[in-house]
């Protein structure tokens, strides 16, 4: 195998006609760059945000809508009412479970250097942290007892803790949320940024935003910490203004998650919510018996987290790559056939077709790797520009290692495919014809 010799020959050939070489590399590079930039965004958006347990976390949905409300939607509403949430929490039918709703309490630490602001957070149960593998850098989630009685405790994100407390250890210190003081029990790592933020798809941005704080769900309810997110009412059951009126109504505003480890547990839970819906139907509370139990990936799919635009752009960018490849076939043909004389001489000197093929395939491969390098640079440039177009894109427009590898594999693979015809043609060169025409 004369790999070293072929590589030498290859580089010499490429240098001999730098314009043509450059054109081939650039054509491959722009096609690869467009495809990989769009694919990176699509890949980030459609990825599994919690691969080790996405098939064990579930969203139960119940249908509280009246039958004759003119709504042709088959799917139940995407959240639960307060009453249904309380029932599910009390029944504890899953290994772990949590309710959650968005909150935006005011934080006023009384320092001019840190003006008051409304922090984005959620009121959720203690199980949340174990269910979603939330990493802590300090402290821990609040206790089971604090969770059940609704103690005034809070878990902060690293950046928020730093904003309020600087370098001082915040554990055990108090944070004023609204007009009440909460004690910090733990600090969540800033690096915990699931993409998409699958656990809170309703009433919040699924990509680019992350909570600053977490308080117990029971505390939110007891302290009337207002819901910040989506609120939907399908009937006129919200009779009274204020917090109690909301709790008494059939309006939906709470999201719910259950952790179910085995298929048996999933089946049992499904039976449980079907049974609960039937019971509520008998009581006259539910007019429909329409339940769902979605795993993480099913939920992301139902909520259409992957934008159609992202798919469209990826399809068209790959179409562009295809045109670039067809173009490259032509360029490679031009490049290789201009060397017919040299091939003729080498074949006359005893080189087999196989050896000519190997040499030119390797040369094609070198072009492919070069195209991949330039394409990677162009893709990063495109991703950087896209990242300036908003918080969501900033998070999505970053390559992970699999996208890096795919860039090179795509460039190399595509170029080799494009090079097949020109290389085959090069092998067909008949030595006699070439020697004659000089």
């Amino acid at each position, binding site marked *: 195998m004369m790999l070293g010799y072929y590589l030498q020959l290859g580089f010499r050939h490429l240098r001999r006609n730098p314009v043509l070489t450059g*054109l081939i590399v650039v*054509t491959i590079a*722009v*096609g690869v760059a*467009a495809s990989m930039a*769009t694919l990176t965004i699509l890949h980030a958006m459609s990825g599994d945000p919690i691969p080790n347990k996405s098939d064990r976390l579930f969203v139960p949905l119940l249908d509280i809508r009246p039958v*004759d*409300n*003119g709504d042709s939607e088959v799917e139940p509403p995407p959240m639960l009412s307060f009453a249904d949430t309380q029932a599910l929490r009390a029944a504890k039918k899953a290994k772990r479970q949590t309710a959650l709703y968005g909150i935006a309490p*005011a934080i*006023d630490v009384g320092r001019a250097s840190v*003006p*008051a*602001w*409304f922090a984005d957070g959620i009121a959720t149960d203690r199980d949340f942290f174990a269910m979603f593998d939330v990493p802590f850098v300090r402290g821990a989630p609040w206790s089971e007892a604090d969770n059940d009685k609704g103690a005034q405790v809070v878990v902060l994100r690293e950046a928020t803790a730093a904003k309020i407390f600087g370098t001082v250890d915040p554990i055990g210190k108090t944070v004023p949320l*609204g*007009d009440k003081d909460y004690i910090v029990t733990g600090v969540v790592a800033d690096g915990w940024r699931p993409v998409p933020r699958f656990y809170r798809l309703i009433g919040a941005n699924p990509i680019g935003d992350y909570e600053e704080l977490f308080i117990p769900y029971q505390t939110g309810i007891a302290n009337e910490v207002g819901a910040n997110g989506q609120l939907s009412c399908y009937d*006129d059951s*919200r009779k009274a*203004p*204020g917090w109690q*009126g909301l709790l008494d109504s059939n309006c939906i505003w709470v999201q719910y998650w259950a952790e179910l480890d085995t298929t048996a547990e999933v089946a049992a839970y499904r039976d449980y919510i079907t049974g609960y819906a039937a019971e509520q139907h008998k009581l006259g509370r539910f007019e429909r018996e329409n339940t769902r139990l979605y795993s993480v990936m099913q939920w992301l799919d139902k909520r259409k987290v992957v934008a*159609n*635009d992202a*798919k*469209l*752009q990826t*399809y*068209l*960018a790959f*179409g*562009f790559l*295809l*045109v*670039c490849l*067809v*173009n490259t*076939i*032509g*360029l490679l*043909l*031009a490049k290789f056939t201009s060397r017919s004389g040299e091939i003729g001489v080498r074949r006359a000197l005893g080189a087999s077709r196989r050896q000519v093929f190997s040499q030119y395939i390797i040369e094609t491969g070198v072009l492919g790797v070069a195209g991949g390098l330039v394409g990677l640079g162009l893709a990063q440039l495109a991703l950087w520009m*896209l990242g300036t*177009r*908003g918080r969501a*894109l900033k998070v999505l427009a970053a390559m992970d290692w699999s996208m890096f590898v795919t860039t090179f594999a795509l460039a190399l693979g595509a170029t080799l495919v494009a090079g097949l*015809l020109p290389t085959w043609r090069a092998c067909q060169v008949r030595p006699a014809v070439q020697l004659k025409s000089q």
Partner: protein
Amino acid sequence: MEIRPILSALLRSKTGAVLVAAQVALTLAIVANAAFIVRTKISTSDRVSGVDEPNLFELSYVASKKIDDRKGAMQKDLEILRAMPGVVGAATVNMVPLGQSGWDSGLCADKTKVETCFDSAMYMGDEALVPTLGVRIIEGHNFTPDEVEEIDDRTGQPKAHAIILGKHLAQEMFPGETSFVGKLIYDDYSPTAEEMRIVGIMDQLISPWAPASADAYDSVILPVRLIRNRMDYVVRTAPGQRDRVMTAAETALTGLRTDRVRTIKRTFDSIRESRYRDDKTGAGMLIAVAIGLLLVTGSGIVGVASLWVSQRRRQIGVRRALGAGRIDILRYFVTENLLITTAGVVVGVALAIGLNLFLAHKLAMPRLPVAYMIGGVIGLWTLGIVAVLGPAWRAAVVPPAVATRAA
């Protein structure tokens, strides 16, 4: 012009012709669809909102501590705003057009017929809202002060007996009618629905979400002045004064109290930019891909044509020696290119339809109008001719003497 010699020459160098035709076909298919999508996105983001955008800004405060007299606070804010030089109007509102968040609800023309019910964006404000926003009333009138209900969210829930409807919604709810003032509509599809009397029709007021369809203009205004923890103001200024007034207004209102936080301060231009930023990014990407395609295909045509010109120098020389003029040589190459491009265009139109069907099936895209296919065909023919002119001219200037040289 003899097509046959050109065709037979092409058939002898099939590969180059096929490569060019393939690039033309794929480029036509993609660019036609991309152009259609870009046009749709641009026309969506160019839609009028119905308010005086260049002179409007939004300023919003939320109570961070318990405020007992929220009504008093609001009245003081509005008093100050309305007295500021350069301010034409100020009003309290619950949501803003293109703001992407707000309230919506179903409203019915007939509380027994669900097909007369439509989802509508529910704007809430008193008699100051319409003149402040600059919404055009085309039938009936703005609310009178006695039609306005003041609702404190601690003690009551929003209700109204009068309502102003957007024209598009009125036409949907009462098809075939031309006059709507005085009609009754209902807030629910149920026997206990509350009725509201239409007192005015607005030309258009786009909803906060502004989806791509005409339903974006399904909006109403309820005569409700909300007293709540959130104090959301829209302010209209005299032309050219907006930025100055916005800064002054923020300073004035923020300095008034320490028990609230300013959460929003933005011009309506900024609100529009936010709503359509993703559409614009998407359009930009598609334009970049389309330009890339045209450049690559164009360079491919130039390359293949140049190759053929250099391969056929001898033949060109012979033809020139036999009396062919420059124009004849030029015409030969341009015609050859047109034949290839036409073959590509024919396949390209089929591919464009196929791609559009695929996108319609997978991504719910609308059908590609014929105009875009025609435009694509003309565009690619033009690209082909422009690209081949250079090599064709170089062919045309090959001197007849080349025929006499060895090689």
